[in-house]
């Protein structure tokens, strides 16, 4: 009985929390996210209440985790790829309108010179107008007062008139004052010597257009570009996020300042991934063969030494290489200068930077291949090598005619996984070169050593532009590549479930 009460209590509490989150998100017009959590909560309740779905209770948390943090972000990203979501078009239309309508400017015509008086009850601001003087009630001026009514007055308050030096000290607290006159006007500090009336910058019309009250220019909302635009073509920032269809994809294909770098980076990404797989496999297979050879003693020692690069956390060893390859202080250039008298510029020459990346990645990746190959080599029957030795075959013959044909099939899915991993090897590039050296003539951040993933990351998160839409479009293209690879992989590895 207790258990049942406990169970339902916990369930009710969780559902209550989820409902709170959903309603809060809905109230903030975050419909996509409200929907996401609604679906999640509903399916959770369904699975945990329905007796028939007992088995699904076990897998629900894992599936929900994947749905929330893998599948939903993936679909959301694909969706962003069709919008102009970026640093300049970050908000929704309503938020942009609120932002613009909240803007004000200070009038040139309605101005008051003022004096600040210290009376027994506090500070008093006395405004001298052309027709009518105004006075505030006594104030503390400690920054807590925002809106203060002012009343018509005819004589200056009694008390000490403060000098400019004291006014300067109280400047920020004076600046936060909003003085409300009896006829509904708002005044704020315009300079150290004057207060001026505040006007709304824009007036909203029924048809959605807005007029700038200062310049009398009218702006119309343009839902194709996500900006308020005037007849002259001027646009107001901020803009809002709109759907722009395939424009991001077209940009990648047609804009030469994006197409050029994109193509270069794509080719480099492919070559990097292929080269990494080939180098690590060649090295790993060679070492695995040596370690399998029964004539070699001290295998345990060799094995431990050889997998050390795999055991050190990658983010540390990549940074170690970054320091060692440093042009001026790096130990690698120190050694090279001592031996050959040269100081290669590893980080600013594109070819050298790419060479360095391949060296580092081979260092990082060969132990994995070696371990895989060792496992697979053990499965090859010894007598096959006996037979080939009888026929007079050497090691090279053995490798290509016995070993490779036997291990290539189980190895293939692992090689494809390794290819996919390196195709998206973000950490290596982000920590080692950050994409540098830059590609000249690119309109987005793009470097000669950037992989598609790091290129996408930089478009989305690096300094200028923050073009989330474009980044998402490129990410979608990469999703397709990865999806195709993993499907092939699934076929090849004949996964049984």
């Amino acid at each position: 009985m207790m258990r049942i009460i406990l169970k339902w209590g916990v369930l009710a509490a969780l559902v209550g929390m989820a409902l709170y989150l959903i309603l809060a998100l809905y109230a903030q017009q975050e419909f996509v996210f409200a929907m996401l959590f609604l679906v999640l909560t509903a399916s959770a309740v369904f699975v945990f209440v329905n007796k028939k779905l007992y088995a699904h209770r076990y897998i629900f948390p894992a599936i929900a985790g994947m749905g929330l943090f893998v599948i939903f972000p993936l679909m959301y990203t694909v969706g962003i790829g069709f919008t102009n979501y970026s640093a300049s078009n970050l908000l929704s239309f309503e938020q942009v309108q609120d932002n613009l309508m909240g803007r004000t400017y200070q009038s040139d015509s309605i101005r008051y010179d003022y004096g600040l008086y210290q009376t027994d009850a506090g500070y008093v601001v006395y405004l001298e107008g052309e027709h009518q003087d105004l006075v505030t009630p006594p104030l503390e001026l400690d920054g807590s007062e925002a809106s203060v009514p002012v009343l018509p007055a005819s004589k200056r308050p009694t008390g000490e008139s403060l000098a400019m030096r004291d006014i300067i000290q109280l400047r920020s607290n004076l600046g936060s004052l909003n003085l409300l006159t009896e006829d509904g006007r708002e005044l704020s500090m315009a300079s150290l010597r004057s207060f001026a009336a505040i006007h709304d910058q824009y007036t909203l019309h029924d048809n959605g257009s807005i007029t700038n009250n200062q310049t009398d220019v009218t702006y119309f909302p343009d839902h194709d570009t996500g900006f308020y635009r005037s007849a002259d073509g001027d646009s107001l920032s901020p803009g809002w996020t709109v759907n722009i269809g395939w424009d991001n994809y077209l940009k990648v294909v047609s804009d030469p300042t994006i197409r050029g770098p994109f193509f270069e980076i794509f080719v480099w990404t492919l070559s990097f991934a292929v080269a990494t797989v080939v180098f690590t496999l060649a090295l790993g297979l060679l070492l695995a063969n040596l370690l399998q050879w029964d004539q070699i003693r001290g295998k345990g020692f060799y094995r431990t030494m050889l997998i050390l690069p795999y055991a050190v956390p990658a983010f540390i060893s990549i940074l170690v290489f970054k320091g060692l390859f440093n042009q001026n202080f790096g130990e690698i250039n120190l050694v090279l200068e001592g031996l050959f008298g040269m100081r290669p510029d590893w980080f600013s020459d594109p070819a050298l930077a790419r060479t360095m990346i391949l060296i580092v990645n081979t260092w990082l990746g060969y132990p994995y291949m070696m371990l895989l190959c060792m496992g697979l080599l053990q499965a090859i029957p010894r007598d096959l090598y006996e037979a080939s030795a009888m026929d007079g075959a050497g090691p090279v013959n053995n490798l290509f005619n016995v070993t490779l044909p036997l291990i290539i099939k189980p190895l293939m899915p692992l090689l494809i996984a390794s290819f996919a991993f390196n195709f998206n090897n973000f950490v290596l590039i982000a920590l080692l070169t950050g994409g540098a050296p830059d590609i000249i003539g690119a309109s987005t951040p793009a470097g000669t050593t950037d992989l598609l993933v790091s290129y996408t990351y930089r478009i989305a998160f690096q300094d200028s532009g923050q073009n989330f839409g474009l980044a998402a479009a490129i990410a979608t293209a990469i999703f397709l590549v990865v999806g195709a690879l993993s499907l092939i992989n699934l076929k090849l590895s004949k996964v049984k479930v």
Partner: protein
Amino acid sequence: MAMVQPRSTKYRVLASHLGMLGFIVIILFPLLMVISISFRSGNFASGSLLPENPSLEHWYLALGIPYTGEDGTVTQPPFPVLLWLWNSIKIAVVSAVLILALSTTSAYAFARMRFAGKGFVLKSMLIFQMFPPVLSLVALYALFDKIGNHVSWLGLNTHGAVIVASLGGMALHIWTIKGYFDSIDRSLEEAAIVDGATTWQAFRYILLPLSVPILVVVFILAFIMTIMEYPMASVLLVDTDKLTLAVGAQQYLYEQNYLWGDFAAAAVLSGLPITLIFLYCQKWIVGGLTAGGVKG
């Protein structure tokens, strides 16, 4: 032992030994270098590969102790390395516990129960696991931004967000554990169920105790993977005192503020425990990595 041995075998064995030793020297050069640099005085001094006047200044700074030089100048530690290490360990332990608990129960259902859509779900998990989270960072960032407005401990710049986000990567572990469960005979559990045990009891008191080895492996794997996670933490965490080691360590090597010696000491200090854990567990880890997931 092979019966047929060519005459040149002796030289080939010797050549293999020499070749491997030479290779190991090259491979270990970066690691040995870093240890040596961590004892070298100053951040810019280059000169010899072995430190000429060994100094512990970088080690003091890495351990968070201000270092007083010979001329009396006091250097403050540039970054809170130990705090970063602690953050990393905290996040990794909590993540690993959660991942282990959730993937074990899922793997149990996948291994022992029949239900609709089982094959489909298992296969889709394998496919989705290959999509790198770095590509959907914009969406993840937005997701945690929105959640954080209402649930503050899950928002941006919190460890809660990093921990929860790591739960997206459970498929690999589910496959590993399921592979192990599949290899355990199910007759014991069936006998228990015949005797009146519930499914949960059969799982909790019979299968789990038998699976301790694989659970240890998965825990360590999940722990190491979370410690090494970089892209997600780099976007979600902002404040210096919230960073994980993987995100913070790169700050030593900014071009404007290049602290090569300090980095070396911090790297050895924080990298060594993880390396040792990995080496100690490598047999099981490798088995889990290669055999557990994909059985060809």
